[in-house]
């Protein structure tokens, strides 16, 4: 089936193949090699959508990523919003519809894979047009490690859109030879469909490869859909080409109005006639090619309207082909609704516009010159300079390790681009001290036609009597010359402010066609040079990149590492409910059938307080500190004295920052004179190791001490409760577990069937408890032995929730939950853990600040709701009544807040820990906690609510 606007021949599409797709519900066909845009145009369809604010019909206005018009929503094969019809490759089953500027994200999970690859090269060449191919060949021939990336489906760049010849043959033959040569070079990575979208420091470039998008449903599932290439290049050659720039005039947004170069692309690359009757409006010579090529393909070219009074030397060529050339004329406006029907053409001299007459057309091609694609150069912090002749911004300085070549550097003729690409690559090689190859010939080009200077024309004065309110600068944002005039009238001078005021350049195309126009129009309105206006900042990404691609494989379970203990499978089988503690998966509680969390936790707590419980405490941070000066280091970092600890003993310690505030707590086992095992909180493990390293390396490099994490080398099982001695004694008959032989805060090494085991009498619950340490390989076996031995006593595995209740009942704080970086050991009631003997330790000097002696500092206390029923939400504020029992007027002063709050089996009532101003002085008082709009009276108590005498720890 032939589409009505398909040229009879030409193009790089596969005419033998047919692709069926759906657009706006209509089934259409195209050919393999089409884009959605070229297939729509081949079917005579220019309009894609209506505009976001004004609802004006909008269509395909360019042929690639610079298109401000043809936004589509993809529905099949997978919903994806805000793509350009010009960059979507056609495939069977593609379903899309036009978008008025806003799309819809998929509401189903994306099952496609995305990944990332790191790559290191000597020379990265961005762009596989004439300059880029020449550069890549030069670098490859010299034996350099090269990456060549290009965003199109095939190499060739501008050659794909034209009829140029090299070495007396079609230029694309040369391009094909170049690609083949690169493919034969083992050190070359050549990627098409790959957009370099970000350029960063030290030669770091991010590129997005679209690997299977063009295959549609046929995409193999095992291949990632898109890949982010993280390329580190010693040297970069940018050959990113140029974007054609429109000229602004009234009603310049109608479907059927497109860039002149885009029409050539649609014709030569896709074999599509974008219209039947064309008017070409230009300020430079390049659009003459479009006029002549379309004419040859059978399009009636009604007129070439050249704004330059002297026109172009190519006038004769046109007239010979039967094309009328109107020099010194401009398009002042258009007619038509869903498609342009007439161009209004008027004489133009010295900035003045004469009376206009309408010329019928269904295609109005526009060229206002070319903007070098300097985005990546600018992202790498290269300064731009305005070129008066081109009316464009060019790289304005040399950057180390980055060379801009070809039309990206303002070189627009084919011979010049080839030579410039080669020059750029040679400069890169020289900088890398890589000798260029002896044989590095460039293809022969026909003698170039000397072009006439372009006219820099940003906009045609509005003659319609309007105020520029239909002269669109940024079609996607519906922003017009009138909007810019309003911004300038409001006093805005900076191009960055005007961008934000008008929203120009903030749409998906990021101002590829509108940015420089805006600079020019602003300069004109302000009467200042364009150089002084400058451009807005170019930021990555150059083209939109899906979050899914940026996330790559770091999503779902791979978003963050999951750490599990050696017992994880056992916990799962036991029906544990897990909670995330940092990266760890920890059992929170083990519900039995019919139990909710509250019931399960009350049961687990009661078991530990009255019988025996067992916890998987393997996530506890463990740091092995070794060396003759190990004790010195720990003395300087802990608030209490560690050096006096005897081998075989354990001491609780607190660490503070230099500001004197608690950063971690835990126990220290002295393993030998020169060796300690430091136990940190689960969350503090990495931080405290870093803290020790920092001090040891930066302040006390003279200390002979080494610290290493052994968290994963030991599993830890606290066996807790009055019957724990029976259980541990039964499993380790060789150990005298009596209180006399194995007192509180000591440790013993033993073996179990030849496996080394360490036992420690440490309690985080206040109960008699033994911590069992063993190599993780034996975790399950030892755990099982303990369970078996505990069965007669009803041994009960418990999770972190019960652990928290048990420790809170004893007033043991959790650093980071009951403290927040403003809490000193004294505030926690731990003055006993602060050495008075040591001359100094980290944090000591800060304790002497007057603020630390303020009696109104917040102190850790217990709270008992008087109603014996309310579980105070953690984080609740604590407030005080006035002496007369009235609530103070708002804002009600806050005394502090609830830090931990649980239901207690032991107390048979809920309780809480809180940081309260002058809390210890308030013990016995009643304060109030607002809960869901009511004030709950609570009694202030000491922080130790269970066994304050400590009678239970020895069983």
């Amino acid at each position, binding site marked *: 089936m032939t589409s009505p606007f398909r040229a009879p021949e030409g193009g790089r599409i596969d005419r033998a193949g047919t692709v069926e797709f759906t657009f706006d519900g209509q089934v259409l066909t195209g050919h393999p090699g089409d884009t959605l845009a070229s297939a729509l145009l081949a079917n005579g369809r220019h309009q894609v959508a209506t505009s976001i604010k004004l609802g004006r019909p909008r269509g395909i206005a360019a042929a690639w990523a610079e298109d401000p018009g043809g936004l589509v929503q993809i529905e099949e094969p997978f919903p994806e919003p805000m793509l350009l019809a010009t960059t979507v490759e056609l495939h069977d089953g593609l379903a899309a519809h036009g978008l008025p500027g806003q799309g819809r994200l998929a509401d189903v999970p994306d099952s496609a894979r995305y990944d990332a690859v790191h790559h290191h090269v000597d020379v990265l060449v961005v762009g596989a047009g004439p300059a880029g191919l020449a550069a890549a060949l030069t670098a490859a021939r010299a034996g350099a490690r090269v990456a060549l990336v290009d965003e199109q489906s095939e190499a060739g760049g501008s050659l794909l859109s034209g009829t140029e010849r090299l070495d007396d043959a079609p230029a694309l033959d040369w391009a094909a030879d170049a690609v083949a040569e690169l493919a034969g070079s083992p050190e070359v990575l050549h990627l098409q469909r790959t957009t370099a979208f970000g350029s960063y420091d030290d030669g770091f470039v991010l590129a997005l490869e679209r690997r299977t998008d063009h295959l549609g449903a046929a995409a193999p599932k095992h291949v990632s859909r898109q890949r982010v290439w993280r390329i580190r290049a010693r040297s970069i050659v940018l050959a990113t080409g140029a974007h054609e720039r429109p000229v602004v005039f009234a009603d310049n947004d109608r479907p059927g109005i497109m860039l002149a170069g885009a029409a050539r692309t649609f014709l030569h690359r896709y074999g599509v006639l974008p219209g039947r009757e064309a008017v070409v409006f230009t300020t430079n010579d390049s659009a003459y090619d479009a006029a002549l090529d379309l004419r040859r393909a059978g399009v009636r070219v009604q007129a070439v309207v050249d704004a330059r009074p002297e026109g172009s030397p190519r006038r004769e060529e046109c007239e010979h082909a039967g094309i009328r050339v109107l020099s010194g004329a401009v398009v002042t406006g258009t007619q038509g609704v869903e498609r342009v029907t007439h161009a209004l053409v008027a004489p133009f001299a010295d900035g003045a516009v004469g009376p206009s007459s309408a010329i019928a057309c269904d295609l109005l091609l526009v060229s206002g010159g070319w903007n070098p694609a300097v985005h990546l150069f600018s992202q790498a912090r290269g300064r731009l300079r305005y070129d008066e002749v081109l009316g464009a911004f060019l790289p304005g300085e040399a950057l180390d390790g980055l060379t801009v070549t070809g039309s990206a550097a303002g070189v627009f003729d084919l011979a010049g681009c080839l030579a410039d690409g080669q020059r750029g690559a040679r400069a890169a090689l020289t900088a890398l001290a890589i000798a260029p190859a002896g044989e590095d010939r460039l293809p022969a080009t026909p003698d170039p036609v000397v072009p006439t200077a372009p006219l820099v024309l940003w906009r045609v004065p509005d003659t319609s009597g309007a105020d520029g309110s239909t002269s669109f600068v940024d079609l996607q944002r519906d922003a017009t010359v009138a909007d810019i005039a309003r911004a300038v009238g409001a006093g805005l001078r900076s191009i960055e402010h005007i961008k934000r005021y008008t929203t120009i350049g903030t749409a998906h195309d990021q101002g590829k066609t509108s940015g420089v126009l805006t600079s020019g129009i602003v300069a004109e309105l302000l009467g200042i040079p364009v150089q002084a206006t400058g451009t807005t900042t170019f930021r990555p990404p150059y083209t939109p990149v899906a979050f899914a691609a940026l996330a790559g494989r770091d999503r779902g379970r791979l978003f963050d590492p999951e750490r599990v203990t050696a017992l994880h499978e056992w916990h799962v089988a036991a029906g544990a409910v897990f909670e995330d503690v940092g990266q760890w998966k920890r059992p929170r509680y083990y519900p039995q059938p019919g139990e909710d969390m509250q019931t399960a936790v009350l049961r687990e707590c009661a078991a530990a307080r009255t019988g025996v419980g067992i916890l998987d405490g393997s996530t506890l941070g463990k740091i092995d500190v070794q060396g003759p000066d190990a004790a010195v280091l720990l003395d300087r970092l802990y608030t209490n004295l560690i050096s006096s600890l005897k081998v075989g003993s354990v001491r609780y310690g607190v660490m503070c920052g230099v500001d004197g505030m608690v950063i971690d707590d835990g126990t220290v086992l002295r393993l030998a004179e020169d060796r300690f095992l430091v136990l940190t909180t689960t969350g503090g493990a990495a931080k405290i190791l*870093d803290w020790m390293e920092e001090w040891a*390396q930066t302040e006390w490099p003279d200390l002979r001490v080494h610290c290493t994490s052994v968290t994963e080398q030991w599993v830890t099982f606290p066996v807790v409760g009055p019957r724990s001695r029976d259980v541990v004694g039964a499993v380790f008959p060789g150990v005298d577990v009596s209180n006399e032989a194995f007192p509180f805060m000591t440790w013993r090494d033993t073996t179990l069937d030849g496996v080394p085991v360490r036992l420690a009498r440490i309690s985080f619950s206040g109960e008699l408890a033994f911590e069992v340490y063993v190599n993780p390989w034996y975790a399950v076996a030892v755990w099982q032995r303990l369970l078996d031995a505990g069965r007669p006593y009803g041994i009960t595995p418990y999770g972190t929730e019960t652990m928290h209740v048990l420790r809170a009942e004893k007033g043991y704080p959790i650093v980071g939950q009951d403290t927040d970086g403003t809490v000193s050991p004294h505030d926690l009631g731990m003055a006993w853990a602060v050495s008075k003997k040591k001359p100094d330790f980290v944090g000591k000097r800060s304790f002497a*600040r007057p603020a630390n002696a303020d009696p109104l500092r917040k102190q850790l206390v217990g709270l008992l709701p008087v109603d014996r029923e309310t579980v105070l939400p953690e984080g609740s504020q604590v407030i005080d009544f006035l002496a007369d029992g009235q609530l103070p007027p708002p804002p009600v002063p806050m005394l502090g807040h609830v830090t931990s709050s649980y239901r207690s089996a032991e107390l048979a009532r809920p309780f809480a820990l809180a940081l309260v101003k002058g809390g210890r002085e308030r013990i016995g008082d009643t304060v109030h906690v607002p809960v869901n709009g009511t004030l709950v009276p609570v009694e202030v108590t000491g922080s130790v609510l269970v066994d304050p005498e400590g009678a239970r720890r020895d069983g």
Partner: protein
Amino acid sequence: MQLIACPWCGPREEVEFSYGGQAHVPYPDSPAELSDEEWAHYVFFRDNPKGRFAERWNHSAGCRRWFNAIRDTTTYRFERVYRLDDPKRGGTELASSRKEGTAP
């Protein structure tokens, strides 16, 4: 993303490093002898120059060693890196750098 030259590992990706603030602010010899104000200057006060700055860096996802660097805060560029035991310490070259943590 910059490459930072670890003195032990050579140039590595910026994400492997963590920042440690101003270099050459040593822990005072005798904190107890300092006034509250002098102590506060050690704990809280750091320079914030525009231009060259001596900084501490840690190759935290690599060799885990601390080192010093001279970096330009306006361009972010590293001028050089040096080991903590480098006798040519950057602090002696930077007029703005504090020699002791004690003087405000």
